[in-house]
Each structure stands twice: as C-alpha cells, then as structure tokens.
C-alpha cells in the first residue's frame, strides 16, 4: 500500500517544529505502524535525510515506550492497542496519516516525535510503592487475598505508564495513571499502612508537575492500551477525600 504521511519534525526541545509530508511506498499490510516508519526512515537515510526520531523498545505492547498521536488519537485508531501493536492493514491504501508527538505541557518534546515523560516517574517516587525491606517479608501465603481483590488490583497494575491518558485528555490530566497505582496498592492488604500518605503525596506531586484535573471526558479510558478503567479515577477521588479527612482529624 502507499500512504502520505504528515509527520511532526522538531530538531530539539527549543527549536520550533512543523508537520512535514513524506510519501510511504510499498508498505506491506502485515507491517506494524513502527515498521512502516522504519521503511520510511531507511528511504530517508538513502537520500541522506535525517530519519524521523520516535520512541519505541519492546514492540510488543508492554514496555510503554512507544507513543505517537496518529490522526489525532493517542496510539492510533484501534482500541486497547499501543502504536507498536497497530498494523497497517487497518489503514486504507492511499490514506493521508498525521503523526504527532504526545502533547502535554508536562511532556516537553525532545526531538520529532519523542517527548520527556519523566514527570510520571516523579509521581511514582512521591509514593507509588509499598515499603518492603528485603529480608523482612513474611511468607507469601501468610495473608490470603480474596481473588476478586487480587484480580482488581491486577486490572489496575496492568498500566504500562505510556502517558496516552495524558495526551488524550483535554486537561492533560494524569489521573488515570495515578489512580491505577493508588488503586492497586489500596486494594491489597500489604498496601494499607501507607495508604493515606501515598494518595496525598502522589496527588500533590501530580499537581506540582502541572498535570490537569479530571473533568469526566473519559478520553483517557478510550485510548488506554492496557484498558485501565476510569472507575479507578472514582476510586482515587474517594481515596483522596478519605485521606484528607483522616489527615485533618490526625
């Protein structure tokens, strides 16, 4: 198939960027979206033009490194799919495809389609953990966890940290991301001692990093490749409210 690409090119964080058109020729339908970009890049290199820079690593949908806003949608048109797992058979021959970076004030562009998502790491540093010193753990079966809680915790833990939720949200909110970690740990008995502190600190950090608040657009849920449900945001709100009250009373 042949395609016409409109790709965001930007030399570095400080340079202005713009959309540049590139034709993509003879793309196999079974190629992934990133393999399509590989083919375009090989052609650019052969013409001594700089290849398009984009983030990617595992190419099997789990590392969360790939990004891209494809035709206006984070990770492209397919539901529950990362860009690396999007295949060209879902596009029409002759289509024009726009490719832009994840956009959010908290995700500055580093080059072309690559953005800096380290703000998400800093939110995790603020409290996205259970303190568990090596050597002090009790036997794994000493505290049974009801299957439904473990399953729900796993639903939340499946977050791959790609940041599509932020890119899709009109407020550039990171609440789906934060709610996933807060919910996972709040659902497990091991997460109880730090439950109050965790949610307060993570939300505070999220605000400091410039992410917006949730105003119920559900765009995050629609683009999430790991199918994290927006109901976790409701849980985050509950956790946050209760933690504030507890904090006040303490």
């Amino acid at each position, binding site marked *: 198939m042949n395609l016409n690409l409109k790709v965001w090119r930007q030399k570095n964080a400080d340079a202005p960027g713009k959309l540049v058109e590139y034709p993509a020729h003879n793309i196999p339908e*079974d190629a992934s979206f990133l393999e399509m970009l590989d083919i375009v890049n090989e052609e650019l290199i052969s013409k001594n033009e700089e290849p398009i820079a984009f983030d990617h690593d595992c190419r099997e949908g789990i590392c969360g490194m790939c990004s891209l806003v494809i035709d206006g949608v984070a990770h492209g048109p397919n539901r529950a799919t990362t860009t690396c797992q999007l295949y060209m058979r879902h596009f029409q021959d002759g289509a024009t495809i726009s490719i832009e970076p994840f956009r959010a004030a908290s995700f500055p562009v580093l080059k072309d389609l690559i953005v800096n998502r380290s703000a998400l790491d800093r939110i995790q540093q603020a409290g996205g953990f259970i303190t568990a010193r090596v050597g002090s753990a009790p036997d794994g079966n000493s505290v*049974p966890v009801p299957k439904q809680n473990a399953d729900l915790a796993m639903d939340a833990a499946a977050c791959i940290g790609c940041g599509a939720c932020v890119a899709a949200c009109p407020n550039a909110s990171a609440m789906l991301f934060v709610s996933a970690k807060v919910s996972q740990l709040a659902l497990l008995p091991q997460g109880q001692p730090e439950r109050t502190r965790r949610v307060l600190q993570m939300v505070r950090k999220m605000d400091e990093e410039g992410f917006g608040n949730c105003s119920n657009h559900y765009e995050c849920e629609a683009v999430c490749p790991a199918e994290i449900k927006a109901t976790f945001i409701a849980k985050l709100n509950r956790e946050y409210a209760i933690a504030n009250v507890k904090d006040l009373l303490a």
Partner: protein
Amino acid sequence: MSLDSKIPSGPIEKKWEKHKFESKLINPANRRKYEIIIVGSGLAGASAAATLGDLGYKVKCFCYQDSPRRAHSIAAQGGINAAKNYQNDGDSVYRLFYDTIKGGDFRSREANVYRLAEVSANIIDQCVAQGVPFAREYGGLLANRSFGGAQVSRTFYARGQTGQQLLLGAYSGLVKQIAAGTVQMFPRTEMLDLVLVDGHAKGIVVRDMVTGEISSHAGDTVVLATGGYGNVFYLSTNAKGCNASAIWRAHKKGAYMANPCYTQIHPTCIPVTGDYQSKLTLMSESLRNDGRVWAPKQQGDKRPPNEIPDSERDYYLERKYPSFGNLAPRDISSRAAKQACDEGRGVGSTGLGVYLDFADAIKRLGEPLIRERYGNLFDMYHKITNEDAYKVPMRIFPAVHYTMGGLWVDYNLMSNIPGLHVMGEANFSDHGANRLGASALMQGLADGYFVLPSTIGNYLSTQLGKKASPDHPEFKKAEQEVNNRVRNMLSIRGKRSVDSFHRELGLLVWDKCGMARNEAGLKEALQRIPELRKEFWKNVNVLGENEELNQSLEKAGRVADFLEFGELMCLDALHRKESCGGHFREEYQTPDGEAQRDDADFAYVGAWESPGNGAAPVLHKEPLDFENVHLATRNYK
C-alpha cells in the same frame, strides 16, 4: 589468569549459608562512603539498586530507556519459579536445583544453581510484600502452574504479564530509594566504556542520549545488569534497544566472556512473515500447558488446519516425548519444530511454522476458562496475525529469545576483573546450556535482591578510601577513545544504513549459528563476519551529529559491537565439539537426532579472553564438577 570460582567448601545445602557468614560485612556508617555504579534497570539492576540503596550505599543507576520501568524484563510473560511446594506435589529446593541442572544439560555450576533454588522462595515473599498482584485461588492463596521442563506446579504468575509485575515491583523499590536520595537515576544514558584504574573496575564512560554529552562516572565498584545479546541475530524477541555493548566493552577491557554459543531459541513465537519485520513476538510457553503442538503428517499439506483430520496430524512432541509431551524443554521443542519444517511439513505461507492447537482444551475446559488463562496472548496473536486462535490453531516457530552465555563471574558474581560485578542475563552463571521456562525472572531477582547485596562486601571491604576520581587519566583516556569512535562513525557517510548491516549479520548468524550449527557453516561465518565488519567501518551511513538525540548513532555503536561479538559467538560454537542444550552441532547427535554431549572433553565453562590488538581470543576453562547430580543423558521420553 586462572579462574577461581570461589565456590565454598562443604555440602551443597550449606554452601550459601556458610558463604554468607564468611562474607565481609560493611559497617552501616561506612556504607554511604561507597559509591556503586549499576548499569541496567531490569529485574537484576532495579532490584539490586533498590536493595543496596536501602542498605545505605550510594548508588548510581543507568538505563538507556526513558524510564527504568521499561527495561525488557517487563516483557516476560509466563511466570517465575519458586520451590515453595504450595501445591504439595513433591517440590523442594533440591528438586528445583535438580531440574535446573538437568535442564541446563549439565553445563552450569552446581553451587550457583543450588543457591538460586534456595533463595527462590524468598523472592516470592518479597514480591508479595511489595504488592505484586500474583494470580490467586478463590481461597485467597497464591496460584501456581506448571511450565516447560517441569513436572511440578511451581510457577507463580500474574496473568500473562509476570515480568511486568515483577519489574514494577522492583521499580517501586527503586523509586522509593530515588526519592530517599540513596539512588541517583540516569535514564536515556548509555554506557560506552568501562574504566579500569590499577586493574580494578572503577567507573564508566557514558553518553547522554539527549544532549550527546560524553562523561565519566567513578565509583567503588561497577555492576553490569545489561541483559543478553540476543539481538546479534537482528530478529529476536528482545526489545529493539537491547544490546551487548556494555558486556562487550567490559570484555575488551579484560573481562572473560563465557559460553557465548549458548543461545536459547524459544519454541513458541509468531513466525516471520516478511523482510520488513523488525522483531519477533513470543507467545508464552505457558500456552503449552493447554495447547497441543502438531504438524501435518504429509509433506506440503496445504489444507487449512481444520480440514486436516486427526489421523493425518503428527502431534510430534507427544509422540517423541510421551512423559513430558507438549511440556518438553525449550531446546528440545525448538529442534523438533525445525525438524518437522526441514522435512517439508511446515505450515503457513513460508513453510516455517507448526500449529499450537487449543481445540481440545476449549472442548474440555470451555472457551471462557481458556480466555481467562491466556486472553491477552490470544489478543496479541490476533493483533499481529489477524487470526483468531480460539477458532484456528496458532502458527508458531522458534525464535531467539534468551542467551545463557555472558560475562564469567565467580560465586560472588564478580568477574575476573576485580570490582566488576555482573548480574542476571548479562552473566553466564546459572542456566548452563539451556534455560528452563520461568527461571530468568528467578535469576534476575535472586541476583539483585539476595545474592549481590550479600557478596558485594567481599570486594568493597578491601576498597575503603580507594575511590578513583573521574579526572584520573584513565577516565580521560577512555572518554577520548569513545569520542574518537563516535566521530569516526559519523564521518564515514557511506552508502548503507546501520540496519542493513544489522540485518545481514543477523541472517548470517541465524543461518550458521542458530538452531543447528556445523563446522563448515561456522567457518564460513567466521570468514564473512570480519568482512562485513570491515565494510561497516568503510560504508556505513550515520547521519546527524553527536551533540543531539541521534538514534542512528546509538544503533551504530551497538551494531559495531555485535559485529565483533558475533565472531566470538561463532568461534565458541566451533570449538565446542559436542551438542548440549541450545548448542546443537549437527555432527554430534544420537541416531534419533538428540543432542550428544561429550562430558569427557567438554564438561567445562569456556571463558574467552580478549588479548587486544587484534590477537586471537584465548580460551580459559573452568571445569564443572557434578558432586550431587550425576552426569546423565537428558531424557524427557
């Protein structure tokens, strides 16, 4: 130099206990005076950084990804082994040890493997305490499943995303330490050289992948946890960024590379479809618990699978290995698939594939249960191939997955270079010639949470106040060398892209040093790799500059190292005139096509030294003694 493995004396079940007692401790007040450099943030690197940081050491951790949470450990699907015997099915530390030694085809070190089995139970406890949401039974206890090469259910799992959950557990410990200030994290930073001062590993030279700045970091010890070298084959299940540069740079500075010919070809991957393909995708081995592997009995049978009656199907694993059946170890299953395809019985458009069929399991257990167990894998398969594996059998073919070889280390996980420690897939130590399923996660976390934190004191205690300065001439010299190499690559401006060289190398080593190897093929590869390398340095086209984010330059450095590494891999495969585990030499097989070991001549670790200045690599041997598990032919029949 002789290879002293420092294996403690005494009975196998007492060795680790004894060694921990005899190991040097570092006084808590002194720990903050030591700086530890860790390269890599996968299971081994992240767990070690978190644990050492928690102990009070000053840690610097480096990764090439934009976040430590993205290391390729995250992609492991199936599970992690532990000798808990929660299922009451006869498991024990000794049985896990025995299975791993046998699975490794008697080419691993008994003492290391026993220790691995011993700490496996602690790993599960640690992960549960961190909030890793392992699968559970309705009663709330941890669930288990069986996995390739084992007859007990000792594998713990979190749906099909066990690696992700374990890595995020280690990452959570790591971010806690980053917040506490004990660990300093350097994402998007790549190690380009190891620096030795007076023969000791005292630091690294790195490139900031955003600005291109090349700088030095000095410490008291360097720990490499940089994963395996599977991407030498270009197509593998590894992430695109996985590379051997850190271990190869260390090798060129004197660290011995052990058993590089031991590569694991995983039996259940999605087959290759075209030459545009950039990577291969694994379908977890756990699928073999319920899926049946088969190929048509007739050559060139092009009928759709559902039209081939049962009587014309060859369930070859069940036929050849009745007691293990579809759960036969990886090396054996891969070779059996290759054999079926070599006989012209392969399926799919390329003829390089066999079926993994769930029809019987769906009939027996119902689709909802199969969906609960493997739903995400079936979805992934559908995304990639556009086929519904609930209705038609999956097509699978073996692909490069894991590398058992790596830098040589002693019982303390220290290489022959004092101060250089190596963990996880980057070292050679625990899997022999073939790794069993669900053992990689176990080793990464065993090394990082339990082993290195207990053994590192043996080196550090000798080094108080001996830290080098990054202004030391050795650092300046290494920085200069890195700079020259980078400038050199950027100045060639030839006609071929980096990827074109990588693909050519990959095809060559897959063909000559892949699932089956022979003397003629290896000799041919040993002639062609240096030619390709020569062409690379004359004709590669790396655009852009160093002082920017430059993905072509990053790749070029890694491929240049693969072009050297690949040669050593083939040399090792040529010298090892036997078949064992993942190393199958066609000249050495039993009449029915099984691997034939030569214990009299090859029961040793082959550790290669790079003498430098273009001289041929020198082989050192560490003999392997089997005092507990007696050398025997592996039998899965």
